């Protein structure tokens, strides 16, 4: 028995030796994973128990950052709420619209390839750069949007799109939808194209046509894809950063501040933060809680959508 163990050990050692080339080839990826994913995450978790300004030595303060976060930081919870408002608003607009676009594209009308290419186009542009362009489009004076509304007679005085609440949040939602609707349309389209033709044919016999066909055949068969698309969209919108940072910087007076911009402003308090000193420890605690929020939301979503699956 002892011999067996030795033999096993030897063979393990042997197999490791045999795999040395494979280990070497994997090394860059593993080093990257350890240094740029694992280490920063552990660092953030451990620094969340310290007071640290990024320069002087960190001092251990136990759970103080978390106590502050949960009891004395209404701005953080407003950012969480804003993130929720943003995500719900964006999903409510983007998902149905993307599905409608996909259904229409799936009819393979003449030119639909070109249209598909155009609808996807915003996805290959930089969100930050396009946010600069949108800040001009939505500017209160001589902005294209206001001018168009004037001409149409829809408004009598310029709307301060980015300077007043709730307009700023609406603009952020619209710009973000503009940027990402293409990829969701393409996802839905590939889901639709995966539905075999004969399912529709047998549906025809049962008299499922038009909108009925859509509700009783297309939607149920799309459910799996819908689950995945929604999950990606939820996670993406909870992590929103670029567009808010560039377009509104969280303003006016914090009404578009989302979790990620609020966290960032504690690590790098350059332009608009509450204090000019980095609050790295507190920012880390915010990051930990934000990760937990995203994890919990995703888990709840997965649980609920599984349940829906069972019913359907």
């Amino acid at each position, binding site marked *: 028995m002892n011999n067996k163990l030795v033999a096993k050990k030897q063979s393990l050692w042997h197999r490791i030796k045999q*795999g040395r080339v494979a*280990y070497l*080839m994997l090394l860059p*990826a593993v080093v990257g994973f350890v240094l740029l994913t694992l280490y920063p995450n552990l660092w953030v978790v451990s620094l969340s128990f310290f007071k640290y300004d990024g320069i002087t030595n960190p001092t251990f303060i136990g759970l103080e950052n978390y106590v502050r976060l949960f009891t004395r930081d209404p701005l953080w919870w407003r950012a969480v709420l804003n993130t929720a408002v943003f995500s719900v608003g964006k999903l409510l607009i983007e998902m149905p619209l993307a599905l409608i676009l996909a259904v*229409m594209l799936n009819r393979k009308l003449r030119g639909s390839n070109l249209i598909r290419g155009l609808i996807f186009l915003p996805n290959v542009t930089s969100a930050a750069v396009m946010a*600069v362009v949108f800040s001009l489009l939505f500017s209160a004076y001589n902005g294209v949007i206001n001018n168009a509304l004037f001409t149409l007679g829809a408004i009598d005085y310029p709307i301060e799109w980015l300077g007043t609440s709730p307009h700023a949040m609406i603009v952020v939602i619209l710009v973000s939808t503009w940027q990402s609707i293409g990829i969701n349309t393409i996802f839905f389209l590939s889901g639709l194209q995966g539905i075999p033709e004969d399912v529709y*044919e047998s549906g025809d016999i049962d008299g499922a046509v038009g909108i009925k066909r859509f509700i009783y055949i297309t939607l149920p068969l799309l459910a799996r894809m819908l689950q995945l698309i929604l999950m990606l969209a939820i996670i993406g919108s909870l992590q929103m950063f670029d567009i808010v940072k560039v377009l509104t910087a969280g303003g006016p007076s914090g009404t578009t501040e989302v979790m990620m911009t609020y966290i960032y402003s504690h690590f790098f308090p350059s332009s608009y933060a509450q204090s000019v000193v980095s609050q790295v420890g507190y920012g880390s605690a915010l990051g930990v809680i934000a990760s937990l929020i995203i*994890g919990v939301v995703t888990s709840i979503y997965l649980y609920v959508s599984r349940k829906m699956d069972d019913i359907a």
Partner: protein
Amino acid sequence: MSKFGKKPGEKTTGSRIFNLFSYVFLIISSCVSLFPIFYAVMGSFKSNLDFITGKGGVIPQSWHPENYVKAWETANFARYTLNSVFVTLCAIIGCLLVTSMAGYVFARGAFPGKKLIMGLFLGSMFLATGAITIFPIFSLAKTLGLNTSLWGLIVIYIFSINVANVYLVMGYVKGLPKELDEAARIDGCGFFATFMRVILPLCKPILATVALLVFKLVWNDYLMPMVFTLSNDNLKTLTVGVVSLKSSGGGAGAYDIMLAGTAISLIPMLTFYAFTSKFFISGITAGAVKG
């Protein structure tokens, strides 16, 4: 089959009306998608005065191609462009190397701990990134002395392995017949030589997809290059350069330069997209679904 009913898309009054409605809706949607980009490109030819007075619409009243010269020469955009091109090219080459090796090893390697490493990689998709982890990553780069040149940025792009891309390559390699490896082994190729001489050349299509994904990510990225260039204007990439024109007080006086810069940053991507949009769409979809 037409005996039993109508094929989808067959012309009935109902489907004709829906087709017409679809056309109108799709065309409006494509216009909305295109308009901001069109506006930016047109705006890059307008004079600053036209912006301030709001004269004319989207199309410039008089054309000012010298905006590009101004952006290129006085606003440092020549430098930003060079930086963007350099960082993106290096990142693509490096990522292809790291990703293809990892994908190949996961697909064909047999060694203790493979399952564990794959599991860790997959689990890392649930770990925090972005604004949450940028501070420790930046401090690490500082400690290693990588924050004073573009190499810090490049190294980080290369080594922040994208799990989705690794899985793309892995899936592709798994689809190649194993007889290829065996034939190579008989010819005396080791594990690495098999990769270099047999597998890698066959992976061109999937590597093109990965290159595209990295190109889009790095060229358009904002957070990482912004943090790395907070104190050094000469290291800025195009994205950061454009945004910093907006946030600096000079923004109101420099719409023309700002939009010329915007166009400079958009045009390479748009040109590329115009010729390869089908490939672009399928590649990005594949990457995102796997992720």
